């Protein structure tokens, strides 16, 4: 195990976990781009992705290729429900109030999952069988390829959606100026619902592709939500590309921190670097630090 292959191993496993931070961060970005809210229930969407897939298999007897899309659809529906029941009725409330509502929603989703699915941890079978792949001394699970591939696809889809489609631009308009957007005939409220649906879908996708590697239980959402938010900030809030890259960088930083420095302080190392970057570039790596217009 030469030092080089050890380093490569740290980077590969870091990137794999980092991709899920990225997908979670993408979920944050979608909602932030439309409503300027940081959705603290985003971690729960990721958790529900994995759990619904596990229980579609166990209770529904649905085969894996059907369980995964079913889970993602299920969580998307939950995302729409969350918007309709809790966010839409209080349109236009201050962001901090809406953030606390999402905290309440995350407690509800977590409590519900705990009661329905119990407190145990559950494995989800890998999408494609086969042993680890060897790559220059380091090893890689086939599932990691699925993680990388799906993350990339989702990022490209999101970038295409936000930059090239009309409803994508409409969603961005809602974040800049809600009143102006509605004057342009954009139905702001359905755009917000769409953003919750998208972020739930992206989150569930992250949960489903990671579950085979890291197992899932009713409370994995908390840590993932935290890391997703950090990735979002690292990449520059509101920038889909920045969110995913920020996630991958955060994952690699943690893995290198554990491998090269001390495994106990790996999260601390990642956050110290994140904070240092934040102080140097107060708007994240790829964020635009707009001068305050007075």
């Amino acid at each position: 195990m030469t030092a080089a292959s050890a380093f490569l191993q740290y980077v590969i496993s870091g990137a794999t976990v980092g991709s899920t931070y990225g997908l979670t961060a993408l979920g944050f970005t979608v909602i932030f781009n439309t409503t300027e809210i940081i959705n603290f229930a985003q971690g729960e969407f990721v958790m529900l992705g994995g759990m619904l897939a596990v229980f579609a298999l166990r209770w529904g007897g649905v085969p894996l290729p059907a369980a995964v899309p079913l889970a993602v659809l299920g969580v998307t529906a939950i995302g729409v429900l969350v918007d309709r029941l809790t966010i839409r009725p209080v349109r236009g409330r201050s962001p901090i109030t809406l953030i606390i509502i999402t905290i309440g929603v995350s407690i509800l989703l977590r409590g519900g999952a705990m009661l329905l699915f119990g407190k145990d941890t559950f494995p989800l079978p890998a999408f494609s069988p086969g042993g680890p792949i060897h790559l220059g001394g380091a090893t890689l699970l086939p599932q990691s390829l699925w993680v990388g591939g799906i993350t990339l696809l989702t990022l490209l889809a999101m970038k295409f959606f936000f930059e090239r489609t009309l409803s994508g631009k409409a969603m961005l308009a809602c974040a800049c100026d809600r009143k102006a957007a509605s004057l342009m005939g954009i139905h702001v409220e359905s755009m917000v619902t769409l953003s919750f649906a998208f972020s739930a879908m992206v989150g569930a996708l992250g949960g489903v592709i990671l579950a085979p590697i890291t197992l899932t239980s009713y409370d994995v959402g908390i840590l993932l939500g935290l890391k997703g938010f950090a990735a979002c900030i690292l990449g520059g809030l509101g920038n889909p590309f920045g969110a995913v890259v920020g996630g991958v960088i955060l994952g690699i930083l943690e893995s290198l921190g554990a491998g090269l420095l001390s495994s106990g302080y790996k999260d601390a190392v990642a956050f110290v670097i994140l904070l240092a970057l934040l102080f140097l570039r107060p708007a994240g790596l790829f964020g635009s630090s707009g001068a305050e217009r007075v």
Partner: protein
Amino acid sequence: MKGIGNFILGALFAAVLVFPASAAEPIRIGAIFSVTGPASFLGEPERNTAKMLEEDINKSGGILGRPVEIIVYDDETDATKAVTAVDRLIKKDKVVAVIGPSTSGNTLAIMPKVEEAKVPLVSCAAAKKIVQPVRPYVFKVVPSDILAVKKIFQHAKKAGISKIAILTASDGYGAGGREDMKELAPQMGISIVADEVYGPKDTDMTAQLTKIKGTDAQAIVCWGTNPGPAVIARNRVQLGIVTPLYMSHGVASPKFIELAGAANAEGILLPAGRLISEPQVPAGQPQKKILAAYIKEYEAKYRQPVSTFGGYAYDAIMLVVQAIRSAKSADPAAIRDALEKVRGYNATTGEFNFSEKDHNGLTEEAFVMVRITKGDWEMLK
């Protein structure tokens, strides 16, 4: 549909709690378990066991002719909540004894309160500090980790292993094991060549295992409770590491094999209480009868496999019930004295012999080494 079962069960219990229907003044035993929060997989089997025993005892006429009420509070794995819960039990519910908490940290947090109120505490947590130095009102049913460490090191020495790497969870349980391993290793001629740590909720430990792969460790000892060890077992196979892997008794449950996958768990060695390896426990063994009865009833009632932690709650409650019967009184001080006089009491974890100087009452005989072969436990002689 076991999740739904819990759901209905919860509703049922909520109803039952509201209308206790008993004539004579019930004997109230308090219990604090981490039913939610990071240590929830400890608290749930413990609470289920407490509720089961409450029904059984009352069905068989209660204690000293009085019905028993076991009041369970959830401390959500938070020390502050444990403190308010123990005060509620002692000052509001006026309990005669307290069972739990599930974690070492929360036990240490409430010890001053029980000593002040002179109500006996039988903890379901492992840390040595709970009973060292011995405090008159504090007992513990979980065998100290050091006994499990001794069992592992004895097995490793027999296999000619002298250099080990340790990989422990950064929670109360993992830190306790790490402390005991670092204390006992030099005494048994074993050197620790790598001392790595992982977060209890971390989802990838390849970095730590890669680092260990770079050392000359002849065996790896992982100290933690699910899901961490299951991820480590998977990562080990993914990295092609063939160094023998020891686990702690914390993962001694069929759940671990299911999570790790039988292939990844192949060949893993761990000390286990007899509860898990019950089928292979010889008939004549004193605990056999109790183990079989507990497993049959628990799995019938909750349709979940038993866990070592549920066994701890079983022993703690039965020890208190035993003490009340032998003291012929429900007075907390009398219960304490009776507990201290318990000798040769067979329970799921082993044979308890308490004394003024030993409030744990167990030896490493409480453990037996098992090996995971083809997805099942194989007891090693």
